[in-house]
């Protein structure tokens, strides 16, 4: 009788072990089709043309990068980068050349051999090099490769990126889901409607707006991969239907990013056997003040706005608990480069809400605003529920310090043109960053004159610090520089940071090796995913 009790106890302990530990102990099984969910059709299959997770997530299985963040490690940094089309790589010329040594056993899905010519073609197209005829329709990440001077592909199996100056981050950007290698023999416009890659899965069928089906690539260069026979991405637009399909077992996994905490918990309550994983999205929420407007020439005004907002309240009211407080870079433990919490909490806006609100009122009074002459501002935001929810909370907070704020909802199609033209006073915005990397963030959002520097913030000293951190090869020194920059940017009000949202991935327990990273854009390859059925 006693052995039975002990068996029961041991089995109980084993079932309580974390899922990942149990996964690693299991031998992967081959076969089966993964039923994945999409919330909308991808705008195209051309990842280099797109900026939405709806394009990257279902297209990643078709392509390969030179390098990729290890899909089995949840935190992405330089040490978790693994080779894909590149067997190995080396930094040369004091960090001014990055040489990739390519695999020789790779074929495109149409049977053509892969060579360095394809790598050069891809990144010269993105860089819009003079003389390159291939052209992307929209080229959102040209800035990532601005420091690349030339790409040398004289050897068919080696390619050299020559840089204007050292930039360790280039490797991180090349490891992002946004950096696949395109075939040079297929015209770029054709890649918007079909997928010719080297990746673990080949496109079998695309029914516009309904279904994307991939089958295993039998010629894949990684022996024994992928484990799955195929992936079927079903586009389900209605949220209630999506979760019903997941509960009914029609879908194995939901779409990453869109699962709110409440929905995840409700779904799990209905089916306790589902696995719930919490992860970061690498998307931050912030307030933008338009520095081009005369009102904000007086720093007291934006400082008062910053102090008025209770950050803990924002997490509860704006994000229903699904966010963490943070600065310009994604905070730990999710990110690598964020400010330590203790330092972040010392910054204006993150202290005691009552004291801060009193200070905000004082600053407004000094600027000439008070109950008899209230400050009136319009808070613009996108007409999307999550934006409106957070903006409504901000307006309530501003009212508590005597600022009469009104909400201006802007249609998605108009939002970025308006922001780029500076047609706003104060705005509530969300920014997603591809890889968790300072260069990807700083150059796009904070450098003088950058297309996405909506507040019109410009500080030459900050620009030179951005350049300095970008060239620093020593990761410890770079982290220190990035932390200093983070603080400086927040103290300058470059963006009034609120926090970083979290995602909740609910999957069936038979789905193994799908490990969310701190950025949603980089773990969709599906090469290692298998089904325990």
């Amino acid at each position, binding site marked *: 009788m006693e052995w039975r009790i002990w068996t029961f106890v041991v089995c109980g302990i084993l079932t309580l072990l974390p899922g990942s530990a149990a996964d690693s102990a299991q031998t992967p099984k081959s076969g089966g089709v993964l039923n994945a969910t999409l919330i909308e059709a991808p705008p195209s299959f051309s990842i280099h043309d797109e*900026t939405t997770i709806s394009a990257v997530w279902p297209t990643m299985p078709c392509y390969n990068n030179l390098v990729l963040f290890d899909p089995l490690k949840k935190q992405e940094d330089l040490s978790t980068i693994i080779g894909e089309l590149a067997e190995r790589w080396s930094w040369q010329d004091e960090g001014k050349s990055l040489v990739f040594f390519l695999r020789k056993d790779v074929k495109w899905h149409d049977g053509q051999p892969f060579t360095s010519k394809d790598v050069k073609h891809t990144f010269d197209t993105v860089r819009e090099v003079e003389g390159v005829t291939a052209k992307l329709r929209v080229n959102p990440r040209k800035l990532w490769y601005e420091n690349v001077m030339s790409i040398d592909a004289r050897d068919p199996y080696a390619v050299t990126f020559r840089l204007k100056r050292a930039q360790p981050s280039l490797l991180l950007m090349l490891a992002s889901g946004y950096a696949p290698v395109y075939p040079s023999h297929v015209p770029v416009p054709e890649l918007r409607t079909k997928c010719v890659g080297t990746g673990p899965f080949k496109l079998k069928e695309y029914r516009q*707006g309904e279904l994307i089906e991939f089958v295993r690539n039998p010629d894949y260069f990684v022996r024994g991969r992928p484990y799955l026979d195929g992936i079927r991405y079903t*586009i389900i637009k*209605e949220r209630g239907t999506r979760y019903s399909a997941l509960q009914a077992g029609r879908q194995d996994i939901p779409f990453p990013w869109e699962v709110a905490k409440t929905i995840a918990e409700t779904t799990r309550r*209905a089916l306790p056997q589902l696995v719930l994983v919490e992860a970061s999205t690498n998307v931050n929420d912030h307030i933008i003040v338009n520095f081009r407007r005369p009102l904000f020439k007086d720093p007291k005004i934006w400082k008062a706005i910053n102090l008025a907002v209770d950050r803990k309240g924002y997490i509860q009211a704006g994000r229903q608990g699904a966010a963490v407080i943070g600065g310009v870079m994604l905070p730990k433990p999710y990110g690598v480069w964020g400010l330590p919490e203790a330092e972040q909490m010392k910054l204006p806006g993150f202290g005691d809400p009552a004291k801060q609100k009193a200070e905000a009122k004082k600053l407004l009074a000094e600027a000439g605003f008070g109950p008899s002459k209230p400050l009136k501002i319009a808070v613009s935001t996108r007409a999307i529920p999550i934006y409106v929810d957070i903006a409504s909370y901000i307006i309530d907070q501003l009212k508590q310090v005597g600022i009469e704020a009104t909400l201006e909802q802007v249609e998605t199609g108009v939002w970025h043109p308006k922001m780029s033209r500076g047609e706003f006073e104060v705005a509530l915005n969300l920014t997603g960053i591809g890889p968790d990397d300072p260069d990807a963030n700083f150059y796009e959002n904070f450098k003088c004159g950058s297309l996405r520097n909506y507040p019109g913030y410009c500080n030459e000293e900050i620009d030179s610090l951005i350049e300095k951190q970008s060239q620093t090869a020593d990761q410890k020194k770079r982290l220190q520089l990035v932390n200093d920059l983070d603080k400086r940017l927040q103290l300058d009000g470059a963006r009034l940071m609120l926090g970083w949202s979290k995602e909740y991935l609910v999957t069936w327990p038979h789905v193994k090796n799908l490990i969310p990273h701190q950025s949603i854009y980089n773990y969709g390859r599906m090469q290692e995913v298998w089904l325990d059925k």
Partner: protein
Amino acid sequence: MRVYLLQRLITAFLTLFGMSVVIFVLLRLVPENIVDILFASAGFVNPAAKEEISRELGLDQPIPVQYGRWLRDLTRGDLGKSYRYDVPAWQVIKPRLPVTAELAVLALLVAVFLGVPSGVLSAVRQDSLLDYVLRIVGLAGLSMPSFWLGMVIILFLVSWTGWIPSMIYVSPFEDLKAHLLQFLFPALAVGYRSSALIMRITRSSMLDVLREDYVRTAWAKGQRQWVVVFGHALANATLPVVTVIGIEFAFMIGGLVVTETVFNLPGVARYLVDAILWRDYPIVQNLVMFIAIVVVLANLTVDLLYGWLDPRIRYGTR
């Protein structure tokens, strides 16, 4: 009859021409176009690239020129190219037409087979318990939006059976049972609402007819109940019912948006909303024209059916 038909066809043509102008102008009145949306999702605006894409899609041309090109292509059977998917619009629209048509027809069958008999029963058993029950059920159908009912059906299925219909379109040639199951629940959700309307019209029309002298005479002659009810009364009560059925069918084609979304059926109605959001003009224009043609044809069919159902009606004479 020929003159009447010709008159109706000319009217239909003019209606469709008017519709084409309205669709075209209204779409252009909506702020922003596909190019703005492409850059909006990219998070930046590059004026040179924007201009180039506009030129490529012909959006840089004056609106009358764009309209003229669309009509010219339409008469040649060329529906243009989807801005969003970069493929011929017909390639996107074609597989969706049978889905919506099948759902509309099935929903209409549900509506007719539920609505007409229950309307007749309700009228024949006026003020009985059965009449009250049928009226309550009918009123409930009218009060419940079909998409809400659809959502409830899905939640009920998943909670009680752990099963829901396929989320991917199943062709009847591939698996007939799965195909029918896929369409059964949306057809019930949409058909129930329409059946309620048909039931109420049938009931009131039947009540009027059942009070007519010739029905009383038929009863007095001792004819069987089913002969009186179906042979004499229903035959003469069908005109308003047919009108409602025609209108409902036309309404269904364009009004299945939410039901198709809830049951994840890849029909034209669901796709139309997507195309509007993306300002995919070729798709929206052609789909709305398709819906307009269905509405015009449905009305024409109903008008022609009047003559067949009621021989007293003559076309083209004053």
